């Protein structure tokens, strides 16, 4: 693989890497026919992000040396980010950036051609890996919001930088509401400030959702995409479904597209009625009822809704259909997926049957397919890399 990025696109690439670094610790780099794909997933599998740069984004783009299979690699995010650490430096001094992957050497070479004849060469070690692919399809989501990233950037401005989660919903008069989400702690003496931002429908390019729908997701991860999209003046679309189902945040232009898939809280937003009607005077509701999901409620939730469905295959063989796992209310521990049992090495410890989930974004490592796979990136989707033996 060899690709050459020049001019302002170097900074764009750098910004994309910065965005991805907000999500995961490992970067999956895969040259495809459609373009160069950079992907990452967080450790609890509750957030997945990918950027695809079309061949036209590059001055030169060669996915694979002819006759060879395209190479895929996984690099430490920290290492790759260090190349693009200073965006101002990239803008001011870097003229060209060349990324090449040589199957012979075990290094990913990133070479920055800078002003005054300075050339910086980074040799990053990588691991061979399977393709990282999340299963998601924006077309299947019934609700869509689309607005210039700037509008959404302004919308999150009133929220404290440290705020972890935010609820997005449609309120009365089809106003889009963003509200800070605090975990209900019945006995906490220090209450946190609650901030709410209400934006009119007119500010959105598309608003396809009914009043009352709402999802809660991680704001910090969303800010990662915003920081990329805002300066680039892109439109950001949010595709979402019921609480618990992953929400898809997408940006696109002629040269690239980006998708951030974030898990959402599966408990229905406890104050969803607030979004629909004003509350002139109301006795304090029993907050505790919503804090721990009962086993009954949980049985109705698809356990997979906590995480983004990932699909696993091996290299160029094409997708292998996996048995889909449906859970009985008894909450069976994840069973080994037969021949894929080695992948379970990566899995988080399974829950004890009968225990309600302690935390919302649990990481469960199931390989079930929820819906027909949508692979925006093309071939070879994989859940996670196999252990070393498989290669």
């Amino acid at each position, binding site marked *: 693989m060899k690709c050459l990025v020049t001019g302002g696109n170097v900074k764009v690439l750098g910004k994309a890497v910065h965005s991805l670094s907000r999500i995961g610790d490992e970067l999956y780099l895969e040259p495809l026919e459609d373009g160069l794909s950079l992907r990452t997933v967080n450790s609890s599998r509750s957030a997945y992000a990918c950027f695809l740069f079309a061949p036209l984004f590059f001055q030169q783009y060669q996915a694979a040396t002819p006759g060879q299979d395209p190479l895929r690699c996984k690099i430490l995010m920290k290492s790759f980010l260090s190349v693009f650490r200073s965006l101002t430096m990239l803008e001011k001094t870097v003229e060209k950036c060349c990324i090449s992957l040589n199957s012979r050497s075990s290094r990913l070479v990133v070479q920055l051609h800078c002003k005054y004849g300075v050339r910086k060469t980074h040799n990053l070690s990588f691991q061979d890996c399977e393709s990282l692919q999340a299963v998601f399809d924006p077309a299947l989501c019934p609700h869509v919001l689309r607005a210039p990233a700037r509008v959404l950037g302004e919308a999150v401005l*009133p929220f404290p930088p440290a705020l972890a989660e935010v609820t997005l919903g449609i309120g009365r008069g089809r106003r889009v509401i963003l509200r800070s989400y605090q975990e209900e702690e019945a006995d906490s003496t220090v209450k946190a*400030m*609650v901030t709410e931002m209400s934006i*009119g429908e007119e*500010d959105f390019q598309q608003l396809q959702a009914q009043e009352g729908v709402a999802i809660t997701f991680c704001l910090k991860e969303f800010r990662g995409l915003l920081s990329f999209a805002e300066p680039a003046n892109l439109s950001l679309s949010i595709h979402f479904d019921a609480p618990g189902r992953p929400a898809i945040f997408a940006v696109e232009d002629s040269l690239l597209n980006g998708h951030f898939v974030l898990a959402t809280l599966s408990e229905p937003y406890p104050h969803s009625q607030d979004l629909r009607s004003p*509350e002139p005077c*109301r*006795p*304090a509701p*029993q907050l505790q009822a919503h804090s721990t999901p009962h086993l009954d409620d949980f049985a109705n939730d698809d356990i997979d809704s906590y995480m983004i469905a990932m699909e696993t295959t091996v290299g160029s063989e094409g997708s292998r259909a996996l048995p889909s796992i449906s859970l009985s209310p008894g909450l069976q521990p994840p069973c080994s997926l037969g021949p894929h049992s080695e992948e379970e090495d990566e899995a988080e410890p399974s829950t004890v049957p009968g225990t309600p989930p302690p935390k919302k974004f649990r990481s469960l490592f199931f390989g079930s397919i929820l819906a027909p796979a949508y692979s925006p990136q093309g071939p070879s989707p994989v859940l996670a890399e196999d252990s070393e033996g498989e290669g």
Partner: protein
Amino acid sequence: MGQGGAAVRALVPCSRGGAGAADTTSAVFGAFQGQTAGHGYFPTGKLHRVEPVLRAKLAPGTLDVLRVSNMIAKLAKTCTLRIRPDKLNFILADKVASGGVSMWCELEQENFFSEFQMEGVSAENNEIYLELTSENLSRALKTAQNARALKIKLTNKHFPCLTVSIELLSVSSSSRIVTHDIPVKVIPRKLWKDLQEPAVPDSDVSIYLPVLKTMKSVVEKMRNISNHLIIEANLNGDLNLKIETEVVCVTTHFKDLGNPPLASENASQARNPEQMAEVHVDIRKLLQFLAGQQVNPTKAVCNIVRNKIVHFDLLHEDVSLQYFIPALS
């Protein structure tokens, strides 16, 4: 104080027409009772009669409340807000937690609000005392930098809150509304006596302060050497800041600062103008005080009671601030 007040009063109050739907129907009346319970929290499950009421609109273009709240946030993590029909106060009372430091900040209500309506706990005690985290208020008001209208209400949304509702200026026709619910604790009447205006002590020396920015940079450097600072001043316009360790002594001398006119003639004759009055304080408390002063005040006076306390009396346009730092024991 008078001049500052006149200048602010010239601001145009915000038009009622622009208020929007957010105003009228949302909770104005907080259903909670503060007095008899030892704390102000709303006991869950019960609905009590309406008690303190606050509904106010800030005159737009008045960023002073934001500046004041930023300053308070730097001075005290938690503070008490006292609301009266004519005045608002931010109070930090002498507490072990704050190291004995106390603060009294006063604003004239009519200089900041175009509309102001309040009802205290009773007709005789037409006051409201709220305890809140200062940073919450400054963060909430920060959103108001581009506001068309700003309203503050006392509400009860599962717990007593100061709700700051801001209508933002927006390019498009639709308005954007930000609401911040700041959790507050309504302080019961029996604790009000601890939150009264502190008596200004009879000082041994009273002197005008130098430019605070200069003073702050000096104190910051000294802090690296020692935590024990000596402030001394005399009636001849001299102020010294001193630190002493085994290894080194550093003193910064400020001269020709001027002294405010003395209250009584007799006192001035008895004292030798050259004689220094000193007080030993924890340098960090002084630094915290100076950190809160982003702008140089209109008036800044330092009163020293020998070996007891140092009292800073500042005036930022029409906001008065008093800060007391006790001497190290």
